[in-house]
């Protein structure tokens, strides 16, 4: 499906309950579901978002702009870039998760050791 195709969730009649301004189809082999959700969350100040599964391991994101003056092309471009950033964040988080847990554990464990008695 083309990234800009206008569709509706299957149980919502077209153009009534949730009329989209545009949609973006995301390949979950590149951007996992978690990344798509985090990116959509960041856009909920500007848009109402509706997500549904598509064939071929894709997620269709429908956008309805909150401000009529907003530029759909600009939002679509920002969303694409934000997907890359959130994908990178997820990758960094995965690579450093064990180290982060070790840092916090070491910090808190050593904090609980009683201070040596003053002489």
């Amino acid at each position, binding site marked *: 499906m083309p990234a800009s195709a206008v569709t509706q969730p299957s149980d919502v009649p077209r153009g009534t309950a949730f009329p989209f301004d545009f949609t973006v189809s995301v390949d979950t082999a590149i951007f996992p579901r978690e990344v798509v959700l985090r990116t959509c*969350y960041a856009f909920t100040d500007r848009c109402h978002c509706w997500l549904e599964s598509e064939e071929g391991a894709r997620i269709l994101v429908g956008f309805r702009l909150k401000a009529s003056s907003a530029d759909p092309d600009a939002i679509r471009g920002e969303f694409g870039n934000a997907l890359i950033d959130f994908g990178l964040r997820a990758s*960094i988080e995965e690579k450093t998760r064990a180290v982060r847990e070790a840092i916090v554990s070491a910090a808190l464990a050593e904090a609980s050791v009683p201070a040596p008695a003053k002489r």
Partner: protein
Amino acid sequence: MAGRLSFAPLADFQSKEPGYQPMPFRFARIPGVDGKVLVTSEVGEFEFLDEVDFMAFAAGTLSPATDTYADLQGKHFLAEGDYSSTLRMVAAKYRTRKSFLKGGPALHVFVVTLRCDHSCRYCQVSRQTADQARFDMSAETAAAAIDLMFQTPSPSLTVEFQGGEPLLAFPRIRQIVEAIEERNLVEGRAITYSMTSTLHQADGEVLEFLRRHDFQLSTSLDGPEALHDANRPRPGRESHRRTLDGIGRVREALGERSLSALTTLTRESLKYPEAIVDEYVRLGFPSIFLRPLSPFGFAAKAAQRIGYGMEEFLPFYERALAYILELNRMGVAIQEAYTGFLLSHILTPFPTGYVDLRSPTGAGLGARVYNYDGGVYASDEGRMLAEMGDHSLRLGTVHDSHADLMRSEGMQLLLATGVAEALPGCSDCAFLPYCGADPVFNLAREGDPVGHRPTNAHCVKHTGLFRILFRYLAEADPHVVRTFTSWVTQRPVRRLPDAEAA
């Protein structure tokens, strides 16, 4: 004599393992800082990288031969080979950043009365008229609150008096201070007294008492006379003049450094950033606290008339900060207090005494409020919320034990929602190490302690402030860096060593 000492080649000291282990980091792109990516570590170190170096660093392919690699290694963004020593150093920094947790609540706020002789439109505490003595704290409640305060383990305690106008209940303040002093002969804590007051009731007897107990005072000054009196009406419309009289009396009795002032910003205030700063300079204050309206009390009810969005506050702040920096450039030493807190979070590993910007939240963990009626709250805003009908942050009463209060439903709510590292939107944010969770604000604004980050005023405000400050840090104007350093170190610019400023 032996021949010349020979040293092993550099390669012998370098890791035999190929590549490096990145330490946890986050990143952001700052508007106005083109071509650079801000990276921040778990413990608040930061660096600006160009896009090429950033992508290489994130991919694990940054060349060890580059300066960027050395900078990142020096700040513990990456480690080679066995990284256990790096991990321990980072853990020590993390522990320092979170050291505010160790002693439990250190700020204890006594709301001795809700009475006030002002009728400020933005009042956040739901004050009562000056003659309604039933809104005063009783002697019995005060004694129980003191007992409760000494059950907390912190070796340093700040006792803060608030209202209403606390000086309308001065006899109760005297009783509390004298009881604390007597009890502390055995307890041996380091105790600081502070009070937020209009100062209008500060006569000779009061000032002598405050001087004897080394009080730190804070008063409200909203700017030039017309703006101040419009924001803070009272019978006779002479609040500004009376405040200035009080400032003069306090300075004479307690000294210049015992008094600070803060301004509460209404929609009208946003038109006058320079005039507000000029008023503080004219009156000789070394610091100004530009405080947006609170979403509590009467301020919540008056929001339609005097409120504004963060998108209106941020340009005001940016203009005021630019003006303050320009004044400093001309030799006028004045700082913006909130900027000072944020810069301390960015430029040092040490937590500040400011409890409203911590993770875990300072509410209940760093501060506790004893209300006039014996209710105990996790923060001043928690009791303001209660005045608005939401009692979820009432931890108990002054007759409960410290342990009971820490196990209360209110504390459970705060602990479940007050850790920014675990909040949606915050966990990804590059500004996380410098920011904090504010479940009380979220409850007041959104009716939900977690809050919706993309539209959350606390998040919009702080993201905006951090972007402004990091833009200044990226520009690295030597004058601005020296001024910021002086704010963080509390040393005049002229006494900063060049090396430190650099």
